[in-house]
């Protein structure tokens, strides 16, 4: 689905991502893990079109999408969420969802006057869709709450809901579990699983919570110092000495104190 080919990106002298290649298979929930500063978020930003790579290509279902701006990728069905959730704080939860769908009759200055009934019909359809999304995420009771008043975890659910208002095919989730309480985390994981199973969403997930990764993701990619150092299912990776070293550091496992 998403093919990442030899992507590199440097910030000044720091090589944030070095020649990383992997494929996110259609219908998979692919994990992306690694210690802080491994280059995961940079890679995400490149895939999502927020950053240009120094070299390398990205393909979405065979089509070269390298360097396309974010909103164009959005219309191609590639959507990302952010590590820190974003919301339209002065709009209600439902309005946050309703503002997303594109290519509507109500956007054209002329059409909205000449064919107002189309606009009304479209608006009703979107309203229903938003309500369905809220029911799916089990946050219908927050429908008329201003999004700015939600908790961090609820905002993440809303982020996920926003992706459901489009014809999203592939969703990049940047630390969906960060700062989310246990109860809500279970709900979030369940929503991701159901979206994957029932709607055929492909996910690529950055996460530090290994339990969440183990529950959701297969395969899992491991990055360290800007490079891809291993991939496979979680059980295999846990046994991989290179992965353990990346996480624990050479200082502990080698005992030489080289750092």
């Amino acid at each position, binding site marked *: 689905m998403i093919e990442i080919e030899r992507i590199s990106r440097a910030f000044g002298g720091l090589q944030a991502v070095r020649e990383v290649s992997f494929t996110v298979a259609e219908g998979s929930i692919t994990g992306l893990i690694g210690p802080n500063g491994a280059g995961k978020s940079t890679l995400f930003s490149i895939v999502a079109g*927020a950053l240009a790579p120094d070299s390398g290509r990205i393909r979405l279902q065979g089509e070269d999408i390298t360097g396309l701006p974010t909103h164009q990728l959005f219309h191609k069905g590639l959507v990302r969420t952010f590590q820190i959730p974003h919301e339209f704080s002065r709009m209600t939860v439902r309005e946050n969802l309703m503002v997303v769908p594109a290519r509507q009759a109500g956007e054209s200055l002329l059409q909205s006057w000449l064919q107002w009934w189309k606009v009304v019909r479209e608006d009703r359809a979107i309203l229903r869709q938003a309500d369905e999304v809220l029911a799916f995420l089990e946050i219908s009771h927050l429908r008329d709450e201003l999004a700015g008043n939600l908790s961090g975890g609820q905002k993440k659910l809303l982020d996920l809901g926003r992706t459901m208002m489009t014809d999203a095919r592939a969703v990049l989730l940047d630390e969906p579990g960060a700062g989310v309480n246990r109860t809500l985390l279970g709900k979030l994981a369940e929503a991701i699983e159901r979206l994957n199973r029932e709607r055929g969403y492909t996910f690529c997930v950055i996460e530090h919570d290994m339990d969440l990764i183990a529950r959701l993701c297969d395969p899992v990619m491991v990055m360290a110092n800007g490079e891809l150092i291993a991939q496979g299912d979680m059980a295999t990776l846990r046994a991989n000495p290179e992965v353990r070293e990346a996480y624990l550091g050479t200082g502990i496992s080698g005992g030489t104190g080289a750092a």
Partner: protein
Amino acid sequence: MIEFIQLLINGILLGSILALGAVGATMIFGVLRFAHFAHGDLMAIGAYFALTVVTVFNLPVLAALPVAMLLTAGLAVGIDQVVYRRIRRVQPVILLIASFATALVLRSFIQMVWGSSNEVYETGIQLPWRIGPLTLKPDHLLIFVAATVLVIGVHLFLTRTKMGKAMRAMSDNMNLALVTGIPADRVIMWTWAIGGALAAAAGVFLGMDTRLHPVMGWTLLLPIFAATILGGIGRPYGAILGGLVIGCAMELSTLIIPGSYKPAVAFAIMVVTLIFRPQGIIKGSV
């Protein structure tokens, strides 16, 4: 007491005119992040458009109002496409100065086409209604009702339509709006169209209340910005409230100080707001 109520009525009238101007100015600021200094002159040109319709077709002012709103909306979108669109990517201060220039161009255009003397929509004296000791001109009631209808219209537009929501979304969180694929160019065109139409309505009402003059909008620009700031910049509902507060304050101030200081009252409120509550009087929502 009677004088107080009479002034309050005048204040609400002035306030609704200011509110219409301020809603447009605040929406333009919310979406485009610059203070539109030509907004007052957009009001004036709207008033003159209506004058032409009134004199050429011999129609009542209220019938000319929709025509004037439509023409001014088109003009505002046109100005944006020709002047502002090209410089949108540079610093906001450049846009601000460009809007100053636009204001001068619009004002000169009015003087060229309609001349620089005072004009009125209808000659002759309108008999005011007497309600006890209070007087109320039929035009005043008309202005108040029409302004209320327009404000309700704006409210429905902002909450019920896709474009209205997109507009609020853009002024709320620009980055998120762009990544969720909100069509920025379309939203900007809509903002100008709505802002222009409301400015025209404000101009026509002002012309009905007083007279038409090439600088009629320019002199009202300060109270409009005061209303915008008082309501919290970028917040349409705040601008409506701000307009009413400023309008009433300006009229009521004549109880204490000479009437020629009315603009100073608006200015003082603006300064005090900027010092003590720069985020505006409305907290949190809308």
